[in-house]
């Protein structure tokens, strides 16, 4: 690992090389899950979903549907071999402690959210499947339901599930003594912050196809971030794990929405029942209705600081809405609780977080995984504090940032590089001269927000990843890894790492990915873990292969191994230009001598076991990425409309593998922030999704965004390959509060609920006008 201050010279690492998958995508060659030719006889699936958010199922009569033309199967809960499983959500280790949870394929006796699957249909055409689904006669006994997590926590609340309580989980963090801390505070700021449901809005809706292959293996090809769900599908079907195969082609986006099982179980059941291939692609409306959402939170923050601007105490209460089923709610809440302090050194901390079931759509993984929610709260608090203290937003933050060696609220001391100070200064400076208002109705403001976000999974999950790297006899290279490529360059990165180590051009490398039968499992594409985990696994495998090649070359050239480098398909010797060999000659020599020219490596992340404790203590994640967003906005005081004028994203990425990809994550993550801050809101009315399509659920268009200026710091102090840190989620964590802090600066009023819409802005402005009168 490089030390800080050393600038390494890499052949390809850190350069902005075109991605190999970009070519296929641009020329229209890439096949996503719905693009594969359906073999003759493929049936179309349709899922019948619950009409109610909360109801008992009195009876289901499928007889009429089954008799309809073209219908091959109509399945309900009774037809599922194991309708309920305890899912490890793609992990290999049973961590206990609520990290495993109920996965129910189809509703059984009760529905817990509108959109829950009630019956599955397979028919020859989609129209026939849709008609048959409508003909399934379900008698519901509607129940009152509960739609607010705070209400759901009350003792007499409607029971969403089968347990006595709607509590999914609760976590506490304690550090120091908050009462004593507040006693020392000269200034205290309190606020209640609310954030809404969010939709991932990947451009590619959920899609897949399942069939039984010629060896009788149940095969599912699906747009999924987790091919490891083959285990859950096998358990559901009552099949051995090695008789179920999941393949993930290139995905058209994931962002956490394809982290849980979406279509896989439905397809498996229908394909197994009908003995025909079955395909299913969600409509956009179905996607919004039926897949996981981002957790809404109610967050109460109380922050105390001395008049010198030193944070002394933080008191936080979090309530998250788990929706109809827990899924990853415990994990998300744990992230929030651990990162509730933000990237700040606070000596006295109390955080209580609780997650409750409601009859809203279930909530689960969504880019940021609990960190963006608390970031909105703590960065709003920081600006409020700064105002009260008479300090600039930047100055207050600078006086409190965590540094390497400082402890989080859990007591974990940060091990890797922490450059938040520099990211904040550079982000702020990059805003440049303030833009003048363009009319008398317009006000302009600017804001910053810093964030911290983990990369790598919870250490309790004992995470690991595998990759195979090998030479072919002609000198071309193969990488095999179960990586799921959701668009962030996950497969391209491991090719780039391999190219660096083995000294071959990237075009000489083929990456086989995303197949549980044929590629060593890399683990989930989630938790900003792919570069860290599969990157390190690939690095390990490539280095092993390199070692073998170098050792053999050393013999063949009769020079010390230390003088040998692999560059551009050649074995080169330092200080002797005459002595060189094509790598392929060495490869062939190895093959003849029985020396392995391939390696399968496993990389294990730091791991711990859950302790018996009332509190969350110690190291929870492998590491964190730190950064700052800055924004300048203009607000039309007559309509409340916000124009985003400038955006900066400054992050320490450790070491960028592909410069363009890393910048792309900063830029793309920032747009998620703008969406979260200003536009995106899945409105639910007693469990019914009101914003049902993309004309009412609004994400930013190109006309809503200015250019994003990415500023990449490279501390080389991360735990990923070459000192890299993960960036996919961190880049999306602090965008929203940067924009909303800018709005608050412009209009002089702070809005504490996302999204900060024109209506909310205008209402706040008018209320202030009234108050002044």
């Amino acid at each position, binding site marked *: 690992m490089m030390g800080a201050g050393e600038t390494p010279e890499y052949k390809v690492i850190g350069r*902005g090389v*075109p*991605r190999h*998958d*970009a*070519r*296929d*995508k*641009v*020329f*229209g*060659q*890439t*096949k*996503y899950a*719905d*693009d594969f*030719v359906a073999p003759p006889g493929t049936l179309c699936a349709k899922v019948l979903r619950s009409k109610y958010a909360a109801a008992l199922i009195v009876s289901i009569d499928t007889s009429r549907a089954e008799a309809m033309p073209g219908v091959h199967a109509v399945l309900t809960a009774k037809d599922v071999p194991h309708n309920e499983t305890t899912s490890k959500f793609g992990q290999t280790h049973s961590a206990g402690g609520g990290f495993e949870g109920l996965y129910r394929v189809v509703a059984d006796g009760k529905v817990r959210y509108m959109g829950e699957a009630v019956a599955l249909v397979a028919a020859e055409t989609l129209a026939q499947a849709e008609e048959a689904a409508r003909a399934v006669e379900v008698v519901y006994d509607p129940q009152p339901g509960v739609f607010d997590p705070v209400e759901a926590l009350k003792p007499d609340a409607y029971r969403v599930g089968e347990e006595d309580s709607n509590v999914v989980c609760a976590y506490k963090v304690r550090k120091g003594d908050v009462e004593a801390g507040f006693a020392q505070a000269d200034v205290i700021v309190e606020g209640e912050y609310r954030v809404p449901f969010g939709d*991932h*809005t*990947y*451009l*590619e*809706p959920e899609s897949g196809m399942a069939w039984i292959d010629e060896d009788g293996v149940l095969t599912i090809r699906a747009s999924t971030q987790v091919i490891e769900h083959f285990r859950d599908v096998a358990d559901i079907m009552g099949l051995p794990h090695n008789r179920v195969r999941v393949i993930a082609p*290139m*995905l*058209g*986006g994931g*962002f956490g929405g394809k982290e849980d099982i979406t279509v896989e179980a439905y397809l498996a059941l229908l394909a197994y029942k009908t003995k025909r291939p079955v395909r299913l692609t969600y*409509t*956009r409306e179905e996607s919004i209705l039926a897949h996981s959402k981002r957790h809404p939170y109610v967050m109460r923050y109380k922050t105390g600081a001395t008049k010198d601007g030193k944070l002394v105490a933080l008191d936080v209460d979090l309530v998250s809405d788990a929706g109809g089923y827990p899924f990853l709610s415990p994990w998300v809440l744990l992230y929030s609780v651990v990162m509730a302090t933000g990237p700040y050194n606070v000596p006295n901390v109390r955080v209580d977080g609780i997650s409750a079931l409601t009859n809203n759509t279930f909530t689960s993984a969504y880019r940021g995984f609990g960190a963006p929610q608390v970031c909105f709260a703590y960065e709003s608090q920081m600006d409020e504090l700064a105002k009260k203290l008479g300090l600039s937003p930047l100055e207050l933050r600078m006086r409190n940032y965590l540094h390497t060696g400082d402890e989080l609220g859990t007591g974990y001391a940060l091990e890797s590089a922490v450059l938040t100070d520099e990211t904040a200064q550079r982000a702020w400076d990059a805003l440049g001269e303030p833009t003048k208002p363009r009319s008398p109705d317009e006000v302009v403001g600017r804001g910053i927000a810093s964030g911290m976000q983990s990369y790598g999974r919870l250490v309790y999950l004992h995470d690991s990843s595998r990759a195979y790297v090998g030479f072919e006899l002609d000198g071309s290279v193969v990488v095999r890894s179960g990586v799921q490529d*959701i*668009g*962030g*360059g996950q497969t391209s990165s491991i090719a780039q790492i391999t190219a660096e180590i083995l000294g071959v051009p990237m075009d000489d490398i083929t990456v086989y990915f995303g197949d549980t039968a044929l590629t060593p499992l890399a683990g989930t594409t989630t938790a900003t873990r792919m570069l860290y985990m599969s990157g390190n696994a690939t690095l390990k495998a490539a280095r092993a292969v390199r070692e073998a090649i170098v050792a053999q070359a050393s013999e063949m050239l009769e020079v010390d191994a230390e003088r040998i480098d692999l560059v551009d398909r050649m074995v080169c010797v330092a200080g002797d230009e005459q002595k060189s060999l094509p790598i392929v000659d060495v490869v062939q020599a190895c093959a003849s001598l029985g020396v392995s020219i391939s390696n399968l490596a496993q990389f294990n992340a730091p791991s711990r076991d859950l302790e018996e404790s009332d509190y969350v203590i110690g190291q929870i994640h492998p590491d964190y990425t730190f950064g700052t967003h800055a924004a300048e906005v203009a607000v039309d005081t007559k309509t409340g409309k916000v124009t985003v004028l400038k955006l900066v994203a400054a992050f320490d990425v450790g070491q960028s593998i*592909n410069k*363009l*990809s890393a*910048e*792309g994550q*900063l*830029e*793309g*993550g*920032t*747009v998620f922030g703008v969406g979260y801050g200003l536009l995106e809101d899945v409105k639910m009315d007693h469990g019914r999704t009101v914003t049902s*399509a*993309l*004309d009412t659920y609004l*994400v930013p*268009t*190109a*006309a809503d*965004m200015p*250019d*994003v200026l990415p500023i990449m710091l490279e501390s080389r102090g991360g735990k990923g390959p070459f000192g890299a840190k993960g960036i996919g989620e961190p880049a999306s964590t602090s965008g929203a509060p940067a924009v909303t802090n800018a709005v608050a600066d412009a209009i002089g009023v702070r809005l504490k609920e996302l999204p900060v819409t024109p209506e909310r802005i205008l209402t706040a402005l008018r209320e202030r006008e009234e108050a002044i009168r």
Partner: protein
Amino acid sequence: MDMQEIEIQVNGRPMSTTVAVDETLVDVLRYKLGIIEVKNGCGQGDCGACTVLLDGEAVNSCLTLAVQADGHRVTTTKGLGTAEDPHPLQTAFIEHGAVQCGFCSSGMILAAASLLQQNAAPTREEIREGISGNLCRCTGYTKIVDAIEEAAQARLPEERSA
């Protein structure tokens, strides 16, 4: 219902099939003609993933009935250029890192081609306006605008005009 025989010129090649009146062009292209580079992201004109050039004009193929395209020309990204003979937009998208998951890319490139036909030297703001019907969830649009700006500056050969 009447099934109608239609013929569409796709990327210069005549293709015919039988369609129902209420079938949309995107569905017919994808499922009946195998033109899978045209994507379906929302089915109602809100995302632009289904963009094609219809007689040279960028439109949402999900908002066009297949019967309305009978006798007309459809151009997809494959009609703009290929790996052997790429369109400057395609080259620029690859080189600028303007492609991440790629699902919006086919449509985005066609919308850009249509823009450059009408406005050979657009400002960055005009580019953003020109692609405002094409959602991208991955890139944040900045590198897409970079790529289109560069392609505009490259000489566009005559035969590229769709």
